[in-house]
């Protein structure tokens, strides 16, 4: 929110100053005018582009952003399946993940460069989507890592104390056994037609 306000102020200030200097370029003859021109033509546009990039990167974490590509629509729909066995749906419907950042929360590598990697992949998705064409069946780049689940579940009482998590804790932490080995019902987009759907929180 603060970034949006800063961006708006910079844009308005920049447009006003640049407009003034475009109308009256003779102002740049004086020393003060030169400084003003440097601020208007250099500092403010760079600041505006920086803030704008940050706002766009925040937008790119939103569920709405991911679902704006039509190939992702079934995955968005799968979040509304009325069946607790569907892991993404139960997380989404029960607020275990923020609904407005549902895709990003579970599909970002929680590593030092996880965010950056996700953005780089996002750019390649743009190329694939608009230039090459999306493949008929979407697959993950690599097998889903437990780290993405344990980012939230590790240290949670339900994970640490409940069987069978308790007994296989080390295997799960070390990714020797996948969480998906047991929690195997995920988006299952092929079976969406048969599934009963939740109407949403305001239904």
């Amino acid at each position: 929110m603060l970034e949006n306000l800063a961006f708006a102020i910079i844009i308005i200030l920049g447009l006003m100053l640049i407009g003034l200097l475009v109308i009256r370029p003779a102002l740049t003859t004086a020393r003060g005018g030169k400084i003003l021109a440097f601020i208007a033509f250099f500092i403010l546009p760079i600041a505006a582009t920086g803030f704008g990039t940050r706002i766009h990167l925040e937008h790119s974490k939103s569920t709405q952003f991911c679902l704006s590509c039509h190939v992702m629509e079934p995955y968005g729909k799968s979040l509304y399946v009325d069946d607790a066995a569907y892991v993404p749906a139960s997380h989404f419907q029960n607020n275990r993940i923020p609904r407005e950042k549902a895709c990003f929360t579970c599909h970002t590598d929680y590593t030092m460069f996880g965010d950056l990697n996700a953005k780089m992949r996002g750019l390649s998705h743009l190329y694939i989507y608009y230039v090459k064409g999306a493949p008929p069946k979407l697959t993950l780049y690599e097998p889903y890592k437990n780290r993405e689940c344990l980012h939230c579940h590790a240290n949670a009482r339900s994970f640490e104390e409940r069987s069978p998590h308790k007994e296989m804790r080390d295997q799960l932490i070390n990714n020797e056994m996948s969480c998906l080995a047991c929690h195997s019902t995920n988006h299952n987009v092929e079976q969406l037609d048969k599934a009963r759907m939740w109407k949403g929180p305001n239904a």
Partner: protein
Amino acid sequence: MNEASPRLHRKLKFAGCLIMLGLLIEATTLYWSQPLSFLGFIGIGGFLVTAGIAVYLLSIVDE
């Protein structure tokens, strides 16, 4: 030295127009939360702003 040439003024006007157009495009793209708006932001808005800054810097260096 204090008398700026009309040529410099023309270049500053040109740089200003490029930057203003770029900033307006950048601001407009923020209304949408879609991949294409990000491309518009970087590809068109960012390009125009960068070009405007380059024209401005080159014009003051030339002067």
